[in-house]
C-alpha cells in the first residue's frame, strides 16, 4: 500500500520565479492538504482540496494556489517567489473532507529560493 508521495524531493528557484509541487495521496484517500514548514518551526496550514475544489484555506497570500485532479492527486503552485518561501512543503492526505480525519504526511519537497 503506497503512502503519500511528493515530487520533486528538492528544488532550487530564484526570486520572482514560479514553482509547482506535486502530491499523490495515500491509496483510498480523497482529500489533500498542503503545509509549509519553515526551518525550526511547525507546519503551517496552506489549504485543503476535496472534490477538486479548495475547501479551506490558511493565512497565505493568493500567490499560493492549488489544484486537485480527478484521481485525487494535487499540485501546489507558488508564483512570484520570495526568499521567505524557502521551506519544506508537506502534503497530507485523508479519507474525506474535514480536518478531523487523520492526516498522513508525505516526505515533503524542500524548496530553496535564492
Amino acid at each position, binding site marked *: 500500500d503506497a503512502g503519500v508521495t511528493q515530487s520533486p524531493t528538492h528544488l532550487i528557484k530564484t526570486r520572482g520565479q514560479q514553482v509547482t509541487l506535486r502530491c499523490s495521496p495515500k491509496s483510498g484517500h480523497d482529500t489533500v492538504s498542503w503545509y509549509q514548514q519553515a526551518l525550526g*518551526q511547525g507546519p503551517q496550514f496552506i489549504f485543503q482540496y476535496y472534490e477538486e475544489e479548495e475547501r479551506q484555506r490558511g493565512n497565505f497570500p493568493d500567490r499560493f494556489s492549488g489544484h486537485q485532479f480527478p484521481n485525487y492527486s494535487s499540485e501546489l503552485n507558488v508564483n512570484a517567489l520570495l526568499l521567505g518561501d524557502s521551506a519544506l512543503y508537506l502534503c497530507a492526505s485523508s479519507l474525506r473532507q474535514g480536518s478531523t480525519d487523520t492526516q498522513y504526511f508525505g*516526505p515533503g519537497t524542500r524548496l530553496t529560493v535564492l
Partner: protein
Amino acid sequence: AQSVTQPDIHITVSEGASLELRCNYSYGATPYLFWYVQSPGQGLQLLLKYFSGDTLVQGIKGFEAEFKRSQSSFNLRKPSVHWSDAAEYFCAVTGNDMRFGAGTRLTVKP
C-alpha cells in the same frame, strides 16, 4: 481559532530514562489531538491520536498520551527512551484546520 503550545523547545534524556513531552491546546469545543514525529529532512509520522473515549491513548513505538480536559493538555510519554527516538515531536489540534505546535526536539544521550 485553535492553537497549540509546546513549552519545551529542546529536551535531553538519557537512553533508558522515561520521557514526557508537554502539549497545551486552546480550543472551544472537544478537540481532536495528535502527536507526530519528524526525523531530520523527513515528513511527519503519526504516533497517536485522541478523538474521544478513553483519555489514555496508546500509540506506536511504545508511546502513550493522556488527554486532560481540565488542564487543556495532551502530554506524550514513554517509559524507556531508545536512541532511535531522537527526533522532533509535534503536537497538533484540529478544528477548522490542523494547527501544530512549534515542536520539541528530543536528544537522547548514550
